[in-house]
């Protein structure tokens, strides 16, 4: 007589075995990724090899030539101990080249003894008026622009929260302290941004407590709906939507739940709950097929 637990184990194994659908879409995508990955690896290897070969050719060929022509020692000596005067002169020449303005034939031919200021009015006079104005207009005031950009960035990044909400949090008068799990969820979000609407936090905490601490599923659904209606773009929307989907499952409203979970599994809410959503969807699909 077989052990009933063994039979149960075998039954469960059979269930797991049935769940082997490869999923042609994911299979094809992975296959393409494998081929593309190997092609990239081969290209990287080819590039690395080409670089090494090029380096060897560029380094080895001149070295061999220098050795054959007997100049190797001289070149090495220059490289190891460059003459100081030459290097300083070279540096000065490089610097001078950098600082030299663009060559202007008229100025170059002017008498160096003349006062340079005499040439400046000439330049201003020669340039047409409209061009001078254009050039002046085109140059933006850089510091001011940078300042405006930073102000614009700050405006975009900061949420539209009123002054009262930004002020230090009022002491909790008649509110219960959120439980640990709720506090963890809230604190994680608080790390991203310091300013969280107190009312939003309270509404979310209420729904969370109802969901996890013994409220009925109907109550939980109502409270999640309340939160989502009040804060459709709130801090805790992904968490609220996911828990709402779980509530719908509990209430047997699988079609609605599936719609929400599919969005999570697709990554519409980023990486949040993607794995759990995918697994819940599988269970829901199984149940639908059984029906």
């Amino acid at each position, binding site marked *: 007589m077989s052990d*009933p637990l063994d039979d149960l184990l075998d039954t469960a194994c059979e269930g*797991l075995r049935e769940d*082997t659908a490869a999923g042609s879409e994911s*299979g094809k995508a*992975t296959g393409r990724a494998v081929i593309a990955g190997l092609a990239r*690896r*081969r290209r990287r290897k080819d590039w690395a090899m080409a670089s090494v070969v090029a380096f060897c050719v560029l380094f080895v060929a001149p070295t061999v030539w220098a050795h054959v022509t007997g100049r190797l020692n001289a070149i090495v000596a220059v490289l190891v101990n460059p003459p100081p005067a030459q290097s300083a002169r070279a540096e000065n020449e490089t610097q001078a080249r950098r600082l030299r303005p663009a060559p202007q034939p008229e100025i170059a031919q002017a008498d160096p003894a003349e006062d340079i200021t005499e040439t400046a009015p000439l330049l201003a006079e020669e340039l047409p008026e409209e061009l001078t104005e254009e050039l002046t207009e085109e140059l933006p005031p850089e510091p001011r622009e940078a300042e405006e950009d930073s102000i614009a960035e700050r405006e975009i990044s900061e949420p539209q929260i009123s002054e009262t909400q930004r002020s230090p949090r009022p002491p909790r008068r008649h509110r219960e302290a959120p439980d640990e799990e709720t506090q963890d969820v809230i604190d994680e979000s608080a790390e991203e941004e310091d300013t969280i609407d107190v009312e939003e936090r309270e509404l979310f905490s209420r729904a969370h407590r109802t969901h996890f601490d013994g409220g009925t599923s109907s109550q939980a659904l109502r409270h999640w709906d309340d939160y989502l209606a009040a804060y459709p773009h709130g801090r805790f929307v992904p968490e609220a939507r996911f828990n709402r989907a779980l509530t719908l499952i509990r209430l047997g409203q699988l079609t609605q739940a599936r719609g929400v979970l599919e969005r999570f599994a697709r990554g519409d809410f980023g990486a949040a709950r993607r794995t759990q959503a995918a697994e819940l969807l599988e269970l829901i699909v*199984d149940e639908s097929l059984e029906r």
Partner: protein
Amino acid sequence: MSVDPLIARLVRGDPFALSEVYERHHARIRAFARRMVGNASAEDLVQDVFMALPKAMRRFRGDCSIETFLLSIAANRSRHHARSLFRFRRAIGRVAEEPVSRRSRDAEEVILQGELRAALERGIAKLSHNHRVTFVLCSVEERSSVEAASILGVPEGTVRTRLFHARQKLRDHLKRQGYG
């Protein structure tokens, strides 16, 4: 269909050979990967296995099928997906904690079957790597101990011993979960 030319092409890194092997074997490897690391990470493991295949073919001695060889790569590579396994365990645990709707008996039965599978998956996820891979190969995929030994590169006796201990642990696990 001759395997040897295919293997030779694989060793050379022929992408068409790899495509061919992938088409033939990806479903089986994916099923194994899902048992080992969960659905979400299975594709990563499958990709890992086939990416490693051309290099691994250099040590292929031809004493087993390509599928067996692929499974041995997957069994080894699944060790590196420990983090995925941790997420897999958490996901299953979270799903299992949700209270069940009791509105309809049919739905209840289906969900209970799902719970049994989830309970088994939790138990499998808790096993050590060696026990897990042995159980998946022998009990879930119903491979013989000879085949499993070939895949894992261990003696047949070792496979049987590991399977015995794995099943013992899973029975205890199911009992603790309230089954049996």
